[in-house]
């Protein structure tokens, strides 16, 4: 084992352990925070693997944006802050079996396939720099890059349309209704009116202008 191997195994233990806590903790906010730990350990693994630009993008977008977005979602759905025991569904055992089977198949296959695979990390140091990634991103991969920007715009518009409640089919149905409703008439102003009494002596009373006195 080289030093890079030891570091990446340690970071992997942190990442997988934090991931296990994400899927097993009983507090919703803690799950989002353990997700930060897991993503941070993965960003550090990218640095160890000499992919420094990807590491920074991971920190900026995953930790900085996506986790914050998830925390916003937790707050906006008024999720229980603190312990809640109903976060796991009834098919936990089945899920555990499926996940263990997935892990067994993947790890067995990879261990048989790549048991002795080795590559010198030192020769790859310039491979993940911002300059190298930027050059290949804007030369070779510029068309998928542009397509992805269109997709991001579509996702943005879709998210806005979905989350705004004053547009869309329901709003169009509800909209004409308040206009048909008659507006309440404003109360007529109070004026001094002469009230005709039976004993020939009229009194001045305050009454509305359209009211019988």
């Amino acid at each position, binding site marked *: 084992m080289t030093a*890079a191997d030891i570091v990446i195994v340690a970071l992997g233990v942190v990442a997988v352990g934090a991931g296990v806590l994400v899927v097993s903790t009983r507090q919703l906010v803690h799950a989002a925070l353990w997700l930060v730990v897991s993503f941070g350990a993965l960003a550090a693994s990218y640095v160890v693997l000499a992919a420094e630009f990807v590491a920074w993008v991971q920190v900026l977008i995953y930790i900085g944006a996506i986790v914050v977005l998830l925390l916003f979602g937790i707050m906006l759905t*008024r999720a229980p802050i603190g312990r809640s025991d109903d976060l796991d569904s009834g098919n936990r055992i089945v899920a555990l079996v499926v996940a263990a089977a997935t892990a067994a198949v993947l790890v067995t296959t*990879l261990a048989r396939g790549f048991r002795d695979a080795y590559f010198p990390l030192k020769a790859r140091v310039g491979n993940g720099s911002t300059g190298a990634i930027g050059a290949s991103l804007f030369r070779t991969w510029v068309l998928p890059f542009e397509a992805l920007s269109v997709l991001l715009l579509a996702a943005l518009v879709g998210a806005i349309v979905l989350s705004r409640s004053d547009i869309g089919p329901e709003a169009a149905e509800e909209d004409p209704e308040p206009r048909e409703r008659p507006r309440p008439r404003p109360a007529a102003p109070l004026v001094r009116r002469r009230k005709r009494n039976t004993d020939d002596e009229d009194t001045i009373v305050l009454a509305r202008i359209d009211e019988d006195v």
Partner: protein
Amino acid sequence: MHLIYPVVIAALLFSVGVYGVLARRNAILVLMSVELMLNAVNLNLVVFDMRWADRLHGGQVLTLFVIVLAAAEVGLGLALVLLIYRNRRTVDVDRLRTLGEHEQEGARQ
């Protein structure tokens, strides 16, 4: 760098994500587990890019694309979750059974 270590870490992280998607009830926790699976794939992409010393940096560029896709996915997913919460007052995926054939009474509870 032995290839086996990061690859096995990615496989384990993916399995943890599979467990989370299947076992969690809260829709936001399901989204978080999907993020774990995407990160496992990203680790694989970076490792194999470095192993083959790809001149076009395809693995790392695809990792960046996956990160952008994950951001779009989380944005849309949270919009959907908020819409469901506004209409049903719950984000419990076990109780959203309107699409099921025999579970009509479960949807109305």
